[in-house]
Protein backbone atom coordinates (compact mmCIF):
# COMPACT_ATOMS: atom_id res chain seq x y z
CA UNK A 1 0.00 0.00 0.00
CA UNK A 2 1.52 3.35 -0.94
CA UNK A 3 1.53 6.46 1.20
CA UNK A 4 -1.38 8.09 -0.64
CA UNK A 5 -3.67 5.07 -0.26
CA UNK A 6 -2.75 4.67 3.43
CA UNK A 7 -3.55 8.34 4.03
CA UNK A 8 -6.88 8.00 2.24
CA UNK A 9 -7.81 5.06 4.49
CA UNK A 10 -6.70 7.06 7.52
CA UNK A 11 -8.89 10.00 6.47
CA UNK A 12 -11.85 7.61 6.03
CA UNK A 13 -11.20 6.19 9.51
CA UNK A 14 -11.03 9.69 10.99
CA UNK A 15 -14.37 10.62 9.43
CA UNK A 16 -16.16 7.42 10.48
CA UNK A 17 -14.85 7.61 14.07
CA UNK A 18 -15.77 11.30 14.18
CA UNK A 19 -19.28 10.70 12.84
CA UNK A 20 -19.82 7.93 15.40
CA UNK A 21 -18.73 10.23 18.23
CA UNK A 22 -20.75 13.20 16.98
CA UNK A 23 -23.95 11.20 16.55
CA UNK A 24 -23.89 8.54 19.30
CA UNK A 25 -21.81 9.90 22.22
CA UNK A 26 -23.77 11.91 24.77
CA UNK A 27 -20.87 13.86 26.30
CA UNK A 28 -20.62 17.29 24.66
CA UNK A 29 -16.83 17.53 24.79
CA UNK A 30 -16.49 14.06 23.22
CA UNK A 31 -18.97 15.10 20.55
CA UNK A 32 -16.84 18.15 19.79
CA UNK A 33 -13.69 15.99 19.64
CA UNK A 34 -15.58 13.76 17.16
CA UNK A 35 -16.41 16.79 15.06
CA UNK A 36 -12.73 17.80 15.09
CA UNK A 37 -11.95 14.28 13.82
CA UNK A 38 -14.39 14.73 10.92
CA UNK A 39 -12.84 18.08 9.99
CA UNK A 40 -9.30 16.71 10.11
CA UNK A 41 -10.34 13.65 8.12
CA UNK A 42 -11.72 15.91 5.39
CA UNK A 43 -8.48 17.96 5.44
CA UNK A 44 -6.32 14.84 5.20
CA UNK A 45 -8.44 13.66 2.26
CA UNK A 46 -7.78 16.94 0.44
CA UNK A 47 -4.04 16.75 1.17
CA UNK A 48 -3.94 13.22 -0.29
CA UNK A 49 -5.37 14.49 -3.57
CA UNK A 50 -2.35 16.70 -4.21
CA UNK A 51 0.24 14.04 -3.30
CA UNK A 52 2.55 12.83 -6.06
CA UNK A 53 4.85 9.86 -5.32
CA UNK A 54 8.43 10.96 -5.93
CA UNK A 55 7.29 14.46 -6.83
CA UNK A 56 8.80 17.78 -5.83
CA UNK A 57 7.29 20.66 -3.87
CA UNK A 58 5.36 22.97 -6.22
CA UNK A 59 7.89 25.83 -6.12
CA UNK A 60 9.43 26.79 -9.43
CA UNK A 61 13.18 27.23 -8.81
CA UNK A 62 15.92 28.58 -11.11
CA UNK A 63 17.33 25.84 -13.34
CA UNK A 64 14.08 23.87 -13.63
CA UNK A 65 12.52 23.56 -17.05
CA UNK A 66 8.83 24.40 -17.21
CA UNK A 67 7.96 21.05 -18.80
CA UNK A 68 9.87 19.02 -16.16
CA UNK A 69 8.29 21.07 -13.37
CA UNK A 70 4.78 20.55 -14.78
CA UNK A 71 5.36 16.80 -14.99
CA UNK A 72 6.97 16.29 -11.55
CA UNK A 73 5.62 18.81 -9.07
CA UNK A 74 2.86 17.95 -6.59
CA UNK A 75 -0.52 19.57 -7.21
CA UNK A 76 -0.52 22.74 -5.04
CA UNK A 77 -4.24 23.60 -5.14
CA UNK A 78 -5.40 21.13 -2.42
CA UNK A 79 -2.64 22.37 -0.11
CA UNK A 80 -3.84 25.95 -0.54
CA UNK A 81 -7.44 24.89 0.07
CA UNK A 82 -6.54 22.93 3.21
CA UNK A 83 -4.87 25.97 4.76
CA UNK A 84 -8.19 27.83 4.54
CA UNK A 85 -10.10 24.79 5.70
CA UNK A 86 -7.88 24.44 8.81
CA UNK A 87 -8.62 28.05 9.76
CA UNK A 88 -12.36 27.48 9.37
CA UNK A 89 -12.15 24.26 11.39
CA UNK A 90 -10.29 26.04 14.20
CA UNK A 91 -12.88 28.85 14.28
CA UNK A 92 -15.76 26.38 14.38
CA UNK A 93 -14.08 24.44 17.15
CA UNK A 94 -13.43 27.61 19.18
CA UNK A 95 -17.09 28.68 18.93
CA UNK A 96 -18.30 25.20 19.89
CA UNK A 97 -15.99 25.06 22.92
CA UNK A 98 -17.12 28.54 24.01
CA UNK A 99 -20.75 27.43 23.75
CA UNK A 100 -19.92 24.23 25.65
CA UNK A 101 -18.48 26.32 28.51
CA UNK A 102 -21.62 28.46 28.69
CA UNK A 103 -23.88 25.42 28.58
CA UNK A 104 -21.87 23.65 31.29
CA UNK A 105 -22.16 26.69 33.56
CA UNK A 106 -25.90 26.87 32.90
CA UNK A 107 -26.79 23.18 33.28
CA UNK A 108 -23.93 21.84 35.43
CA UNK A 109 -23.53 18.86 33.11
CA UNK A 110 -21.93 17.97 29.80
CA UNK A 111 -24.63 15.43 28.93
CA UNK A 112 -26.33 16.60 25.75
CA UNK A 113 -29.53 14.66 26.45
CA UNK A 114 -29.86 16.37 29.84
CA UNK A 115 -29.15 19.83 28.39
CA UNK A 116 -31.53 19.47 25.51
CA UNK A 117 -34.12 17.78 27.72
CA UNK A 118 -34.35 21.05 29.66
CA UNK A 119 -34.84 23.02 26.46
CA UNK A 120 -38.40 24.17 25.81
Amino acid at each position, binding site marked *: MDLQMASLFASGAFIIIGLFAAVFIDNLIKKIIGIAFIEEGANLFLICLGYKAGGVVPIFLPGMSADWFAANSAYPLPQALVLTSIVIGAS*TLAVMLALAMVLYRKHGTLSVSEM*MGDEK
Partner: protein
Amino acid sequence: MNYLIPLMVVVPILAALIVNIFGGKDKTVKAISLVVAIAIPLIAILAAVGVQYFGGHDPTLIASSLPSNLVGALAASYNTGIVYVFENIERIFIFLMGIVAFLAVLTYFAEKKEVSGPYLYLIFMGIASVTALMLSNDIFNMYVFFEITALTQVGIIVASSTEDNYEIAMKYMILGAIGGPMLLLGVGFILGTIGSVNINDIIYALSNNFVNPYSPGLVIGFALILFGWLYSAGLPPFHTIKSAVYSKARPNGSAILQGFSVLCMLAFGIAMYKIFAYIPYFNTAIIGFAILAMVLSIAMSAMEVDFRRMIAFLAVGELGFIALGFGIGTQYSIAAALFQAANEIVITALLFIGFGTVYYLTKTSDTRKLGGLIAADSTMAIMVLLGGFALAGVPPFNGFQSKLMLVQAALDAGYTELAVLAIIVSVVIFFTFVKAFHTVYLQPKPKELKFAHEKIPKATVFSVAVLLIICLVLGIFPNIVTDIFIPFAGGLI
Protein backbone atom coordinates in the same frame (compact mmCIF):
# COMPACT_ATOMS: atom_id res chain seq x y z
CA MET B 1 -12.95 45.46 -14.72
CA ASN B 2 -15.76 46.49 -12.41
CA TYR B 3 -14.47 47.33 -8.93
CA LEU B 4 -17.97 47.59 -7.50
CA ILE B 5 -18.24 43.78 -7.63
CA PRO B 6 -15.69 43.07 -4.85
CA LEU B 7 -16.93 46.17 -2.99
CA MET B 8 -20.23 44.35 -2.42
CA VAL B 9 -18.27 42.03 -0.10
CA VAL B 10 -15.60 44.43 1.13
CA VAL B 11 -17.99 47.18 2.32
CA PRO B 12 -20.01 45.01 4.76
CA ILE B 13 -16.81 43.34 6.07
CA LEU B 14 -15.27 46.75 6.77
CA ALA B 15 -18.51 47.92 8.34
CA ALA B 16 -18.54 44.82 10.55
CA LEU B 17 -15.03 45.54 11.80
CA ILE B 18 -15.70 49.26 12.37
CA VAL B 19 -18.98 48.82 14.28
CA ASN B 20 -17.29 46.24 16.47
CA ILE B 21 -14.44 48.66 17.27
CA PHE B 22 -16.88 51.51 18.06
CA GLY B 23 -19.17 49.14 20.01
CA GLY B 24 -19.59 51.48 22.99
CA LYS B 25 -20.43 54.61 21.02
CA ASP B 26 -24.08 54.30 20.08
CA LYS B 27 -24.43 57.31 17.80
CA THR B 28 -21.32 56.47 15.76
CA VAL B 29 -22.35 52.83 15.41
CA LYS B 30 -25.88 53.77 14.37
CA ALA B 31 -24.67 56.27 11.79
CA ILE B 32 -22.10 53.89 10.27
CA SER B 33 -24.57 50.99 10.23
CA LEU B 34 -27.31 52.97 8.52
CA VAL B 35 -24.96 54.41 5.89
CA VAL B 36 -23.56 50.96 5.09
CA ALA B 37 -27.01 49.34 5.15
CA ILE B 38 -28.13 51.89 2.53
CA ALA B 39 -24.89 51.46 0.55
CA ILE B 40 -25.20 47.66 0.20
CA PRO B 41 -28.34 47.62 -2.01
CA LEU B 42 -27.14 50.78 -3.80
CA ILE B 43 -23.85 49.14 -4.85
CA ALA B 44 -25.82 46.13 -6.15
CA ILE B 45 -27.94 48.47 -8.28
CA LEU B 46 -25.01 50.54 -9.58
CA ALA B 47 -22.53 47.74 -10.34
CA ALA B 48 -22.25 46.71 -13.98
CA VAL B 49 -22.66 43.08 -14.96
CA GLY B 50 -19.23 41.49 -15.22
CA VAL B 51 -16.56 39.08 -14.01
CA GLN B 52 -13.90 39.76 -11.38
CA TYR B 53 -10.71 37.66 -11.37
CA PHE B 54 -8.91 37.61 -8.01
CA GLY B 55 -5.19 36.83 -7.85
CA GLY B 56 -5.26 34.75 -11.02
CA HIS B 57 -6.07 36.02 -14.47
CA ASP B 58 -8.41 35.35 -17.30
CA PRO B 59 -7.36 31.84 -18.47
CA THR B 60 -7.45 32.86 -22.13
CA LEU B 61 -4.73 35.46 -21.45
CA ILE B 62 -2.24 33.08 -19.82
CA ALA B 63 -2.83 30.02 -22.04
CA SER B 64 -0.19 31.19 -24.52
CA SER B 65 2.62 31.21 -21.94
CA LEU B 66 2.08 27.68 -20.60
CA PRO B 67 4.68 24.86 -20.74
CA SER B 68 4.53 22.93 -24.02
CA ASN B 69 3.08 19.77 -22.42
CA LEU B 70 0.12 21.74 -21.08
CA VAL B 71 -0.83 23.56 -24.29
CA GLY B 72 -4.21 22.24 -25.42
CA ALA B 73 -4.65 20.20 -22.21
CA LEU B 74 -7.60 20.54 -19.84
CA ALA B 75 -5.45 22.42 -17.31
CA ALA B 76 -4.67 25.09 -19.92
CA SER B 77 -8.22 26.42 -19.72
CA TYR B 78 -8.41 26.45 -15.92
CA ASN B 79 -9.05 29.61 -13.95
CA THR B 80 -6.05 30.12 -11.69
CA GLY B 81 -7.77 32.23 -9.05
CA ILE B 82 -11.12 32.92 -7.39
CA VAL B 83 -13.68 34.30 -9.83
CA TYR B 84 -16.75 36.38 -8.99
CA VAL B 85 -19.53 36.49 -11.56
CA PHE B 86 -22.09 39.28 -11.26
CA GLU B 87 -25.20 39.07 -13.43
CA ASN B 88 -28.66 40.58 -13.11
CA ILE B 89 -29.91 37.62 -11.07
CA GLU B 90 -27.20 38.27 -8.44
CA ARG B 91 -28.15 41.96 -8.58
CA ILE B 92 -31.79 41.18 -7.67
CA PHE B 93 -30.98 38.90 -4.76
CA ILE B 94 -28.18 41.02 -3.29
CA PHE B 95 -30.42 44.09 -3.62
CA LEU B 96 -33.33 42.38 -1.84
CA MET B 97 -31.04 41.04 0.90
CA GLY B 98 -29.60 44.56 1.28
CA ILE B 99 -33.08 46.07 1.64
CA VAL B 100 -34.07 43.47 4.23
CA ALA B 101 -30.82 44.08 6.11
CA PHE B 102 -31.37 47.85 6.09
CA LEU B 103 -34.92 47.50 7.41
CA ALA B 104 -33.86 44.94 10.01
CA VAL B 105 -31.07 47.24 11.25
CA LEU B 106 -33.52 50.15 11.34
CA THR B 107 -35.99 48.07 13.36
CA TYR B 108 -33.22 46.95 15.71
CA PHE B 109 -32.22 50.57 16.42
CA ALA B 110 -35.83 51.55 17.04
CA GLU B 111 -36.55 48.68 19.43
CA LYS B 112 -33.25 48.62 21.32
CA LYS B 113 -31.96 51.71 23.08
CA GLU B 114 -28.38 50.48 23.55
CA VAL B 115 -27.08 48.90 20.38
CA SER B 116 -24.70 45.95 20.46
CA GLY B 117 -21.52 46.22 18.37
CA PRO B 118 -21.02 42.43 18.16
CA TYR B 119 -24.64 41.89 17.03
CA LEU B 120 -24.22 44.38 14.18
CA TYR B 121 -20.80 42.88 13.42
CA LEU B 122 -22.46 39.49 12.95
CA ILE B 123 -25.21 40.93 10.74
CA PHE B 124 -22.72 42.67 8.43
CA MET B 125 -20.35 39.68 8.32
CA GLY B 126 -23.32 37.48 7.43
CA ILE B 127 -24.34 39.83 4.64
CA ALA B 128 -20.78 39.89 3.30
CA SER B 129 -20.56 36.11 3.34
CA VAL B 130 -23.89 35.42 1.63
CA THR B 131 -23.07 38.09 -0.97
CA ALA B 132 -19.74 36.38 -1.64
CA LEU B 133 -21.56 33.05 -1.78
CA MET B 134 -23.88 34.39 -4.47
CA LEU B 135 -21.04 35.95 -6.48
CA SER B 136 -18.52 33.14 -6.24
CA ASN B 137 -18.02 30.84 -9.20
CA ASP B 138 -15.86 28.47 -7.21
CA ILE B 139 -17.26 25.64 -5.08
CA PHE B 140 -14.48 25.76 -2.49
CA ASN B 141 -14.91 29.50 -2.04
CA MET B 142 -18.64 28.85 -1.68
CA TYR B 143 -17.89 26.31 1.07
CA VAL B 144 -15.71 28.88 2.89
CA PHE B 145 -18.40 31.57 2.84
CA PHE B 146 -21.07 29.04 3.73
CA GLU B 147 -19.10 28.18 6.88
CA ILE B 148 -18.72 31.88 7.74
CA THR B 149 -22.47 32.34 7.19
CA ALA B 150 -23.18 29.39 9.51
CA LEU B 151 -20.91 30.89 12.19
CA THR B 152 -22.61 34.29 11.92
CA GLN B 153 -26.01 32.61 12.14
CA VAL B 154 -24.95 30.93 15.37
CA GLY B 155 -23.57 34.26 16.61
CA ILE B 156 -26.83 36.07 15.85
CA ILE B 157 -28.79 33.49 17.87
CA VAL B 158 -26.36 33.76 20.79
CA ALA B 159 -26.39 37.58 20.68
CA SER B 160 -30.20 37.61 20.66
CA SER B 161 -30.30 36.70 24.39
CA THR B 162 -33.55 34.74 24.14
CA GLU B 163 -34.56 31.72 26.19
CA ASP B 164 -32.64 28.51 25.31
CA ASN B 165 -30.71 30.31 22.57
CA TYR B 166 -27.41 28.67 23.60
CA GLU B 167 -28.88 25.17 23.35
CA ILE B 168 -30.28 25.83 19.86
CA ALA B 169 -27.02 27.49 18.80
CA MET B 170 -25.07 24.43 19.96
CA LYS B 171 -27.43 22.02 18.21
CA TYR B 172 -27.15 24.02 14.99
CA MET B 173 -23.39 24.17 15.39
CA ILE B 174 -23.06 20.39 15.83
CA LEU B 175 -25.19 19.69 12.75
CA GLY B 176 -23.28 22.37 10.84
CA ALA B 177 -19.97 20.90 11.90
CA ILE B 178 -21.10 17.64 10.27
CA GLY B 179 -22.72 19.31 7.21
CA GLY B 180 -19.72 21.57 6.54
CA PRO B 181 -17.06 18.83 6.31
CA MET B 182 -19.44 16.74 4.16
CA LEU B 183 -19.61 19.69 1.77
CA LEU B 184 -15.81 19.97 1.88
CA LEU B 185 -15.48 16.25 1.14
CA GLY B 186 -17.84 16.70 -1.82
CA VAL B 187 -15.63 19.52 -3.07
CA GLY B 188 -12.63 17.22 -2.53
CA PHE B 189 -14.16 14.42 -4.61
CA ILE B 190 -14.82 16.84 -7.48
CA LEU B 191 -11.33 18.29 -7.16
CA GLY B 192 -9.86 14.77 -7.18
CA THR B 193 -11.82 13.81 -10.30
CA ILE B 194 -11.56 17.00 -12.35
CA GLY B 195 -8.64 18.91 -10.84
CA SER B 196 -10.42 22.23 -10.41
CA VAL B 197 -12.97 23.80 -8.12
CA ASN B 198 -14.08 26.49 -10.55
CA ILE B 199 -17.62 25.83 -11.75
CA ASN B 200 -16.89 26.88 -15.35
CA ASP B 201 -13.82 24.61 -15.43
CA ILE B 202 -15.86 21.69 -14.08
CA ILE B 203 -18.59 22.21 -16.68
CA TYR B 204 -15.96 22.54 -19.43
CA ALA B 205 -14.28 19.29 -18.37
CA LEU B 206 -17.60 17.44 -18.22
CA SER B 207 -19.05 18.76 -21.46
CA ASN B 208 -15.85 18.01 -23.41
CA ASN B 209 -15.59 14.47 -21.99
CA PHE B 210 -12.22 15.06 -20.34
CA VAL B 211 -13.61 13.01 -17.45
CA ASN B 212 -16.29 10.33 -17.19
CA PRO B 213 -19.44 12.18 -15.96
CA TYR B 214 -20.56 9.01 -14.16
CA SER B 215 -17.28 8.37 -12.38
CA PRO B 216 -17.79 7.36 -8.73
CA GLY B 217 -15.89 10.45 -7.55
CA LEU B 218 -18.42 12.80 -9.16
CA VAL B 219 -21.46 10.82 -8.02
CA ILE B 220 -20.18 10.68 -4.41
CA GLY B 221 -19.29 14.37 -4.67
CA PHE B 222 -22.86 15.12 -5.74
CA ALA B 223 -24.33 13.15 -2.82
CA LEU B 224 -22.12 14.97 -0.30
CA ILE B 225 -22.84 18.41 -1.77
CA LEU B 226 -26.56 17.58 -1.78
CA PHE B 227 -26.26 16.83 1.96
CA GLY B 228 -24.55 20.18 2.53
CA TRP B 229 -27.23 21.91 0.45
CA LEU B 230 -30.02 20.38 2.57
CA TYR B 231 -28.29 21.67 5.70
CA SER B 232 -27.64 25.15 4.30
CA ALA B 233 -31.25 25.53 3.16
CA GLY B 234 -32.85 23.87 6.18
CA LEU B 235 -34.66 21.27 4.11
CA PRO B 236 -35.51 17.90 5.77
CA PRO B 237 -33.97 16.41 7.85
CA PHE B 238 -32.73 19.84 9.03
CA HIS B 239 -36.11 21.63 8.95
CA THR B 240 -36.71 21.35 12.71
CA ILE B 241 -33.38 22.86 13.73
CA LYS B 242 -33.65 25.58 11.09
CA SER B 243 -37.07 26.66 12.33
CA ALA B 244 -35.77 26.58 15.92
CA VAL B 245 -32.92 28.85 14.83
CA TYR B 246 -35.34 31.38 13.31
CA SER B 247 -37.57 31.36 16.37
CA LYS B 248 -34.69 31.92 18.83
CA ALA B 249 -33.38 35.10 17.20
CA ARG B 250 -34.78 38.60 17.64
CA PRO B 251 -37.49 39.26 15.00
CA ASN B 252 -35.15 41.51 12.98
CA GLY B 253 -32.46 38.81 13.28
CA SER B 254 -34.90 36.12 12.09
CA ALA B 255 -35.70 38.25 9.03
CA ILE B 256 -32.01 38.34 8.16
CA LEU B 257 -31.38 34.68 9.01
CA GLN B 258 -34.07 33.42 6.66
CA GLY B 259 -32.65 35.67 3.92
CA PHE B 260 -29.26 34.02 4.49
CA SER B 261 -30.84 30.57 4.17
CA VAL B 262 -32.58 31.48 0.92
CA LEU B 263 -29.35 32.83 -0.60
CA CYS B 264 -27.34 29.78 0.55
CA MET B 265 -30.00 27.53 -0.94
CA LEU B 266 -29.98 29.43 -4.22
CA ALA B 267 -26.21 29.65 -4.57
CA PHE B 268 -25.69 25.93 -3.98
CA GLY B 269 -28.86 25.01 -5.88
CA ILE B 270 -27.71 26.87 -8.98
CA ALA B 271 -24.17 25.45 -8.68
CA MET B 272 -25.54 21.90 -8.33
CA TYR B 273 -27.84 22.43 -11.27
CA LYS B 274 -24.96 23.68 -13.44
CA ILE B 275 -22.70 20.74 -12.55
CA PHE B 276 -24.86 17.72 -11.76
CA ALA B 277 -28.15 18.11 -13.65
CA TYR B 278 -27.14 15.24 -15.97
CA ILE B 279 -27.05 12.69 -13.11
CA PRO B 280 -30.02 10.27 -13.23
CA TYR B 281 -32.51 10.88 -10.41
CA PHE B 282 -31.06 14.38 -9.77
CA ASN B 283 -34.48 15.95 -10.28
CA THR B 284 -36.27 13.13 -8.46
CA ALA B 285 -34.05 13.59 -5.39
CA ILE B 286 -34.67 17.35 -5.32
CA ILE B 287 -38.45 16.88 -5.77
CA GLY B 288 -38.45 14.29 -2.95
CA PHE B 289 -36.83 16.68 -0.49
CA ALA B 290 -39.08 19.52 -1.69
CA ILE B 291 -42.23 17.49 -0.98
CA LEU B 292 -40.92 16.49 2.45
CA ALA B 293 -40.10 20.13 3.27
CA MET B 294 -43.51 21.38 2.18
CA VAL B 295 -45.57 18.68 3.88
CA LEU B 296 -43.57 18.27 7.13
CA SER B 297 -42.96 21.97 7.77
CA ILE B 298 -46.49 23.07 6.99
CA ALA B 299 -47.96 20.24 9.10
CA MET B 300 -45.69 21.24 12.00
CA SER B 301 -46.59 24.91 11.61
CA ALA B 302 -50.29 24.04 11.79
CA MET B 303 -49.72 22.37 15.18
CA GLU B 304 -47.60 25.17 16.70
CA VAL B 305 -48.89 27.39 19.51
CA ASP B 306 -45.80 29.61 19.44
CA PHE B 307 -46.31 32.11 16.61
CA ARG B 308 -42.58 32.70 16.06
CA ARG B 309 -42.06 28.95 15.65
CA MET B 310 -45.12 28.82 13.39
CA ILE B 311 -43.72 31.48 11.04
CA ALA B 312 -40.35 29.74 11.16
CA PHE B 313 -41.93 26.47 9.99
CA LEU B 314 -43.89 28.33 7.31
CA ALA B 315 -40.63 29.91 6.12
CA VAL B 316 -38.97 26.50 5.86
CA GLY B 317 -42.06 25.11 4.08
CA GLU B 318 -41.82 27.92 1.54
CA LEU B 319 -38.26 26.81 0.81
CA GLY B 320 -39.85 23.54 -0.32
CA PHE B 321 -41.63 25.48 -3.10
CA ILE B 322 -38.26 26.81 -4.29
CA ALA B 323 -36.79 23.30 -4.27
CA LEU B 324 -39.86 22.04 -6.14
CA GLY B 325 -39.22 24.50 -8.97
CA PHE B 326 -35.60 23.35 -9.21
CA GLY B 327 -36.70 19.71 -9.09
CA ILE B 328 -39.21 19.97 -11.93
CA GLY B 329 -36.27 21.25 -13.95
CA THR B 330 -37.90 23.14 -16.83
CA GLN B 331 -37.00 26.70 -17.78
CA TYR B 332 -40.32 28.00 -16.50
CA SER B 333 -40.18 26.04 -13.23
CA ILE B 334 -36.65 27.20 -12.43
CA ALA B 335 -37.69 30.80 -13.17
CA ALA B 336 -40.68 30.24 -10.84
CA ALA B 337 -38.32 28.89 -8.17
CA LEU B 338 -36.12 31.97 -8.45
CA PHE B 339 -39.17 34.24 -8.28
CA GLN B 340 -40.42 32.31 -5.26
CA ALA B 341 -36.99 32.75 -3.62
CA ALA B 342 -37.07 36.52 -4.18
CA ASN B 343 -40.58 36.64 -2.72
CA GLU B 344 -39.65 34.43 0.21
CA ILE B 345 -36.88 36.85 1.27
CA VAL B 346 -39.33 39.77 1.36
CA ILE B 347 -42.51 38.11 2.66
CA THR B 348 -40.94 36.17 5.51
CA ALA B 349 -38.95 39.23 6.56
CA LEU B 350 -42.25 41.13 6.67
CA LEU B 351 -43.87 38.44 8.80
CA PHE B 352 -40.93 38.06 11.19
CA ILE B 353 -40.68 41.81 11.76
CA GLY B 354 -44.48 42.38 11.68
CA PHE B 355 -45.43 39.49 13.96
CA GLY B 356 -42.33 40.34 16.00
CA THR B 357 -44.11 43.50 17.14
CA VAL B 358 -46.47 41.25 19.13
CA TYR B 359 -43.45 39.91 21.01
CA TYR B 360 -42.14 43.47 21.40
CA LEU B 361 -45.43 44.59 22.96
CA THR B 362 -46.17 41.59 25.17
CA LYS B 363 -42.86 39.68 25.59
CA THR B 364 -44.63 36.43 24.79
CA SER B 365 -45.06 34.44 21.60
CA ASP B 366 -47.45 31.84 23.03
CA THR B 367 -50.73 32.28 21.14
CA ARG B 368 -52.66 30.79 24.10
CA LYS B 369 -51.70 33.83 26.19
CA LEU B 370 -52.43 36.41 23.50
CA GLY B 371 -55.47 38.17 22.10
CA GLY B 372 -57.03 41.51 21.22
CA LEU B 373 -53.85 43.03 19.85
CA ILE B 374 -55.65 44.71 16.97
CA ALA B 375 -56.53 47.43 19.48
CA ALA B 376 -52.84 48.09 20.11
CA ASP B 377 -52.02 48.91 16.49
CA SER B 378 -54.59 48.16 13.82
CA THR B 379 -52.35 49.40 10.97
CA MET B 380 -49.68 46.87 11.85
CA ALA B 381 -52.33 44.14 12.22
CA ILE B 382 -53.65 44.83 8.72
CA MET B 383 -50.15 44.87 7.24
CA VAL B 384 -49.31 41.55 8.92
CA LEU B 385 -52.55 40.06 7.59
CA LEU B 386 -51.72 41.23 4.06
CA GLY B 387 -48.22 39.77 4.48
CA GLY B 388 -49.82 36.46 5.42
CA PHE B 389 -51.96 36.65 2.29
CA ALA B 390 -48.81 37.20 0.23
CA LEU B 391 -47.24 34.14 1.86
CA ALA B 392 -50.25 31.95 1.15
CA GLY B 393 -50.39 33.10 -2.49
CA VAL B 394 -53.46 35.35 -2.47
CA PRO B 395 -53.69 37.84 -5.38
CA PRO B 396 -52.55 40.53 -6.06
CA PHE B 397 -49.40 39.86 -4.05
CA ASN B 398 -46.08 38.49 -5.28
CA GLY B 399 -46.58 35.09 -3.59
CA PHE B 400 -49.57 34.53 -5.84
CA GLN B 401 -47.57 35.22 -9.00
CA SER B 402 -44.68 32.91 -8.13
CA LYS B 403 -46.93 30.09 -6.95
CA LEU B 404 -49.09 30.45 -10.04
CA MET B 405 -45.94 30.18 -12.17
CA LEU B 406 -44.89 27.11 -10.21
CA VAL B 407 -48.25 25.39 -10.60
CA GLN B 408 -48.32 26.19 -14.32
CA ALA B 409 -44.77 24.87 -14.71
CA ALA B 410 -45.70 21.65 -12.88
CA LEU B 411 -48.75 21.16 -15.14
CA ASP B 412 -46.72 21.93 -18.29
CA ALA B 413 -44.10 19.36 -17.25
CA GLY B 414 -46.79 16.72 -16.65
CA TYR B 415 -46.51 16.73 -12.86
CA THR B 416 -50.22 17.23 -12.15
CA GLU B 417 -49.92 15.69 -8.69
CA LEU B 418 -47.20 18.20 -7.73
CA ALA B 419 -49.39 21.09 -8.90
CA VAL B 420 -52.25 19.77 -6.76
CA LEU B 421 -49.91 19.35 -3.79
CA ALA B 422 -48.62 22.91 -4.16
CA ILE B 423 -52.20 24.24 -4.14
CA ILE B 424 -53.18 22.13 -1.12
CA VAL B 425 -50.11 23.26 0.82
CA SER B 426 -50.88 26.91 -0.04
CA VAL B 427 -54.44 26.47 1.25
CA VAL B 428 -53.11 24.94 4.50
CA ILE B 429 -50.68 27.88 4.85
CA PHE B 430 -53.60 30.27 4.42
CA PHE B 431 -55.71 28.61 7.12
CA THR B 432 -52.76 28.21 9.50
CA PHE B 433 -51.93 31.87 9.17
CA VAL B 434 -55.51 33.12 9.46
CA LYS B 435 -56.02 30.96 12.57
CA ALA B 436 -52.91 32.40 14.23
CA PHE B 437 -53.88 35.92 13.20
CA HIS B 438 -57.37 35.48 14.64
CA THR B 439 -55.97 34.16 17.93
CA VAL B 440 -53.40 36.91 18.35
CA TYR B 441 -55.29 39.92 17.04
CA LEU B 442 -59.03 39.30 16.97
CA GLN B 443 -60.07 37.13 19.91
CA PRO B 444 -60.73 38.90 23.24
CA LYS B 445 -57.69 40.06 25.16
CA PRO B 446 -56.90 37.74 28.13
CA LYS B 447 -57.09 39.52 31.48
CA GLU B 448 -53.62 38.40 32.55
CA LEU B 449 -51.97 39.76 29.37
CA LYS B 450 -49.68 42.67 30.21
CA PHE B 451 -47.90 45.03 27.85
CA ALA B 452 -44.14 45.60 28.10
CA HIS B 453 -44.36 48.49 25.63
CA GLU B 454 -47.35 50.66 24.77
CA LYS B 455 -46.52 51.54 21.17
CA ILE B 456 -44.78 50.00 18.20
CA PRO B 457 -41.82 52.17 17.04
CA LYS B 458 -42.48 54.12 13.86
CA ALA B 459 -39.35 52.67 12.24
CA THR B 460 -40.80 49.17 12.62
CA VAL B 461 -44.10 50.26 11.02
CA PHE B 462 -42.10 51.90 8.22
CA SER B 463 -40.04 48.70 7.65
CA VAL B 464 -43.13 46.50 7.40
CA ALA B 465 -44.82 49.03 5.09
CA VAL B 466 -41.80 49.08 2.74
CA LEU B 467 -41.74 45.28 2.60
CA LEU B 468 -45.48 45.20 1.91
CA ILE B 469 -45.06 47.71 -0.91
CA ILE B 470 -42.35 45.51 -2.46
CA CYS B 471 -44.74 42.52 -2.21
CA LEU B 472 -47.44 44.51 -3.95
CA VAL B 473 -45.17 45.91 -6.67
CA LEU B 474 -43.75 42.46 -7.48
CA GLY B 475 -47.29 41.08 -7.47
CA ILE B 476 -48.65 43.65 -9.92
CA PHE B 477 -45.51 43.92 -12.08
CA PRO B 478 -43.89 40.47 -11.86
CA ASN B 479 -42.07 41.04 -15.14
CA ILE B 480 -39.62 43.34 -13.30
CA VAL B 481 -37.90 40.17 -12.13
CA THR B 482 -39.32 37.38 -14.33
CA ASP B 483 -37.85 39.06 -17.45
CA ILE B 484 -34.46 38.38 -15.85
CA PHE B 485 -35.23 34.99 -14.29
CA ILE B 486 -36.68 33.29 -17.40
CA PRO B 487 -33.64 33.84 -19.70
CA PHE B 488 -31.30 32.92 -16.81
CA ALA B 489 -33.21 29.67 -16.24
CA GLY B 490 -33.03 28.98 -19.98
CA GLY B 491 -29.25 29.31 -19.84
CA LEU B 492 -29.09 27.04 -16.80
CA ILE B 493 -30.76 24.06 -18.46
